[in-house]
């Protein structure tokens, strides 16, 4: 474990690197972007990164679809797939609520910029 070099990580664990990158970019977008819709997109990206991590964790070399007939195997783990399916549903509901709130804010204040909203609300 200890003699894993940076190159090894990139070549053999690129899926995890991808998870970290995607989540970090999404999180950064959610925090740094001023546009509320883009914040919601960032949130989605952050969550998608996590889903990819779960899918990666299910992978087995040479594993087949986990539909058990007679013997067979090795199978990939079905559990993370089920988790991701559920988490996707949760994520979609969140996106819907987030966009609904964004729409309401736009209807009320006529802007999608977080900084402008903060100013208007501070004056209220």
């Amino acid at each position, binding site marked *: 474990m200890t003699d894993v070099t940076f190159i090894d990580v990139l070549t053999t664990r690129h899926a995890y690197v991808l998870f970290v990158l995607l989540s970090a970019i999404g999180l950064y977008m959610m925090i740094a972007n001023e546009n509320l819709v883009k914040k919601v997109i960032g949130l989605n990206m952050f969550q998608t990164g996590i889903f990819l991590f779960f899918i990666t964790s299910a992978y087995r070399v040479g594993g087949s679809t986990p539909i058990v007939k007679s013997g067979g195997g090795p199978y990939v783990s079905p559990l993370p797939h089920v988790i991701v399916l559920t988490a996707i549903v949760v994520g979609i509901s969140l996106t819907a*609520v987030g966009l609904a709130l964004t729409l309401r804010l736009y209807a009320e204040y006529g802007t999608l910029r977080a900084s402008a909203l903060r100013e208007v609300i501070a004056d209220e």
Partner: protein
Amino acid sequence: MSDALLPLLIALPLLAGIFPLLLGLRFERAGWPVAMTASLTVAVLAGWLAWAVSPWSGGPQRFVHDLAGYPAPYGIELVGDGLSAILALLISVVAVAVLIYGRTTGPQTNAFYSGYLLLTGGLLGMALTGDLFNLFVFLEIVGLVSYALIASSDDGRAAYGALKYLFLGTTGASLYLIGVGYALVATGTLNMGDMATELAAVGYTDPLVQAAFGFILIGFMLKIAIFPLHTWQPDAYTYAPDTVSAFISALVSTTAAYALIRIAYDVFTVDFFAANPLITDAVLLVASVSIVVGSLLALLQTELKRVFAYSSVAQFGMILAAIGLQSETALFGAVIHLVGHGLMKATLFMGAGVLASAYGAQTVADYAGLAKRAPITSGMMAVAGLALVGIPPSIGTLGKWFIALGAVEEGSWGVAAVIFISTLLTLTYIGRLLETLYFNQPATTDDETGVVGDAGDATDDGSIVADGGDTERATAGIDDVAPVATERIVVVVVLALSTVALFGAAGLFAEFLDPVFGRFFQ
């Protein structure tokens, strides 16, 4: 039989959540009766569960139900023990109180009642589940409905507060999900009991296990609103309708804190803390900072609902500190404080809501002299406020006492000192409210005099009122009194008195918690 209570407690409010909207197509006012029937049934079931796990029923003190008949490590397990029964009872009682309180005020749409029932079901699910991923799903149900309920106010600022909460709350839940993912990779299971065994086999100093706990901890700190991750909370509590503020402040963070206790002690166990002193110290440090900064921020606020919101940051810091202390006494105090804080905050937010509807009072200065006009509500807010400080006899005393006692027993003098300082700070901001309520003249509309009066110096304040010069205008403004339904005041009274009555309940809590803590601290 008793284990069938567990799925019923969750499924009943979730299913009932459909009916206000469905019946609403035909009957305009269908929401409240449906919600009330469902909440009362849930309260009876929760009472039954509490009786079933109590030592007096003679049965087992821990019930397990395998959903759909799939056995434990493969299927999802629901677990009812003393700790979850206390939470279920608190949730159902506060839910009924909120519903009675909200009959005449606050959002009366059928959508609100559907959301209310979904939130109750989600909270009960968090309290009763024995599966880490199932907990995530309930966490998100609670989150989603909270965002919707907060935004149900007509105020555009409520939508802003809800959206902010949505971003931070979802990030918190997602971080929790990453933690669960790491733990799943380390152990291959999601069942709490099973994972506890597997984690011990993997080893508590394994980096994967440490990272899993770290993500779960940060995720919950966001949900519970521990400083510096609390920024969503004041806006959400302040701009939400009064009914919703009371409901959410009393239960949502409370249940998240319960879930953190459950995961920290039932899944990662006290051995994990012992093996990772750095994590334990970090928890204690963050908790202490949260206690002090939360209290100080509460002291600086002018809007009353914001004072209470920041006070929650401090109170939950205390519960987090109790989690980090690894002491049975402190954890006992934490559970009592969870219940106590829920009841006290519900009383305070509801009391503030009554005074806001009657007199339009928003800032602390607006409350000047209201004790003469609304003696009952003010008196009950005073009772709950003093309970929050920890003045006996009240449940606030019990919780703080046991947490502080645990800190002293563990030799954590720093935490004990922080709790003492926070009590003084709590006394300062509650004292400021009481002084305004009881001793200030209702004259200070001028912002500047209001702020000086808030500093809490009685003599200065008197002279400023005399100097104010605009007494008549202010009094005339305050005279517009809107009528308030009696049941709202009754609910405030009952909740406030319950915080006092529960002072004698330490033995009762111990009966429920001893078997649970026996497993936590073997």
